[in-house]
């Protein structure tokens, strides 16, 4: 449980909030590159951390994220004309660059100086790995550009999607570090999903129904280890990293691609669930890409023309009680992503954590909340930059491996937990 004031801190990410300030220390995924496909293309409305913004790729190919509304009369610049190196408001012709600077006010004489005084709030937007990333904090504290492995391997080795989740970001994140739900909620998918099936590790999962959990603090966040019995007294370990504030990875299975997520607040009641799959040393197979596009693994299919999942709260997530009864799917909802999202959204937009009853296997969640609260406080009171901004914290992988019984997985898997270009993932 959390006290009400603690729950408020970790769930509120708007401007000026403690957790909002923490999020504003990081490069965050803002859009897929496909959303701004060409120079001079239509701008895209986006809300991040409770700020309504407009993503722009101008006629010269420059990227920027600016305040959505014209400084003149508050018109949405989504209606703007993307022309000649700027975005022009169609109401009175005020024109802005991707840096938010006003370039032209047609009704005012140039010598009035009015134009130079107008500046929309703007944030940098950079492309990396098919994702447009933004940094919404103070310019003087801007960290190095993101170095996550999925975004730095060749394009044919990685695929990233995003989906709308209609809940607070922390509910979604907590699913990503809650390893104990996998044996229940996703039990129908292990041997059927083309992005999971066939791995030897699956047999360890099925043969040992009583996994044991170990949570270890790590420089960038946490490592959550789940161990099951393997041959000759050894343990099969699945190790999930969480890097602050909102990055998680799923341990790999066999030679399948590695999956992971970012959970990025849109506002306090919605978030983007970013889902990536990549292979460190080979291109993704065509059948893997097809499976991801068809909503397999951690991906979803969409309401056409949107990033809202096809199964959503408006259609009761296409709940199938017969599939639930037959255990084709454990909950009756199809697909790993929507199995999680349906339950997390059912908690309400911001779950009341004063009423929950955690148990010891929830220690990953307990520790993550604690680290977020501590980091937010240290930032607010001492200006201490939080973990996860450093490049070395981002060079991390999830791991699945068999280890002798008396070893600390953090030490024994130390090399395997590092993202190393050209080196295959440690997987079983």
């Amino acid at each position, binding site marked *: 449980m959390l006290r009400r004031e603690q729950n408020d801190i970790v769930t509120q990410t708007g401007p000026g909030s403690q957790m909002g300030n923490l999020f504003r220390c990081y490069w965050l995924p803002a859009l897929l590159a496909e959303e701004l496909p060409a120079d001079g293309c239509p701008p895209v409305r986006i809300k991040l951390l409770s700020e309504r913004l407009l993503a722009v790729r101008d006629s010269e190919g420059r990227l920027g994220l600016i305040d959505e509304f014209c400084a003149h009369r508050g018109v949405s610049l989504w209606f703007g004309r993307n022309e000649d190196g700027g975005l022009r408001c169609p109401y009175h012709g005020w024109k802005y660059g991707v840096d938010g600077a006003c370039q032209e006010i047609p009704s005012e004489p140039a010598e009035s100086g009015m134009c130079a005084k107008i500046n929309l709030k703007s944030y940098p937007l950079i492309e990396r790995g098919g994702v447009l990333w933004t940094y919404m904090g103070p310019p003087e504290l801007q960290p190095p550009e993101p170095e996550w492995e999925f975004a730095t391997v060749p394009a044919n080795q990685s695929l990233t999607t995003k989906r709308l989740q209609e809940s607070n970001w922390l509910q979604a994140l907590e699913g990503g570090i809650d390893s104990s739900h996998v044996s229940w909620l996703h039990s129908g998918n292990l041997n059927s999903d083309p992005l999971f099936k066939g791995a030897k590790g699956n047999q360890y999962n099925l043969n040992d129904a009583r996994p044991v959990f170990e949570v270890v*603090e790590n420089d960038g966040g946490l490592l959550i280890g789940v161990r099951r019995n393997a041959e000759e007294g050894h343990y099969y370990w699945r190790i999930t990293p969480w890097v602050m504030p909102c990055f998680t990875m799923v341990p790999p299975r066999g030679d399948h691609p590695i999956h992971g997520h970012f959970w990025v607040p849109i506002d306090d009641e919605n978030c983007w669930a970013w889902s990536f799959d990549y292979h460190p040393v080979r291109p993704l197979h065509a059948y893997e890409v097809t499976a991801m596009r068809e909503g397999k693994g951690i991906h979803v299919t969409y309401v056409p023309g949107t990033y809202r999942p096809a199964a959503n709260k408006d259609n009761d997530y296409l709940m199938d009680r017969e599939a639930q009864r037959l255990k084709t799917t454990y909950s009756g909802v199809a697909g790993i992503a929507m199995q999680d999202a349906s339950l997390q959204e059912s908690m309400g937009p911001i779950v009341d954590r004063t009423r929950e009853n955690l148990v010891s296997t929830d220690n990953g969640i307990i520790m993550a909340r604690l680290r977020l609260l501590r980091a937010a406080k240290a930032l607010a009171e001492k200006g201490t930059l939080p973990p996860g901004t450093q490049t070395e914290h981002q060079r991390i992988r999830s791991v699945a491996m068999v280890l002798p019984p008396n070893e600390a997985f953090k030490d024994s898997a130390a090399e395997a937990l590092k993202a190393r270009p050209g080196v295959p993932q440690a997987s079983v």
Partner: protein
Amino acid sequence: MNPFLGQSESARVTTAAEARFRAPYPNSRSRSASLIALDADSVALVAHAVASAPDRRRQMLLPDVVQGSEWIASLQSHAKALLDDAERSDMVVMVAHAGHGAAAATLLGEACRLRGVPVTALVIAGDAVPTGHVARTLAQLRPFATMIVVANGPDYVEDMLMALRA
């Protein structure tokens, strides 16, 4: 689909407005925890945690019996009382510092395992702990601990207990 509102049940009930109508009654009883320090460095930590919530927490080994090598002997002589204590608790929390021997936990841990009392082991480590120290302590705890946490600092003991309502 709600036939009157033309809206799915899931859409209707997951709003912030609907959240106000959740039954406002307690959904659990208070939980008790028995805490045991597995090394001398952890004794004060456990005592402090117990002192902050004496109605829900009890210390399974008094500080004045934890004296060097006599500790293990006294632990065994107190075994019956300890096991009774453990059985009355909703959870047993063992606290150890990385690198210290946790062998004293074996007797109690095995008994808890057999009797179905969940044991959470907290290992206090940190950057200064040499490689291998954590593994040594973990090896002694793994046979019976249902959950192990390796924390960088001692504050986590209190934070975890609060989060578990103990």
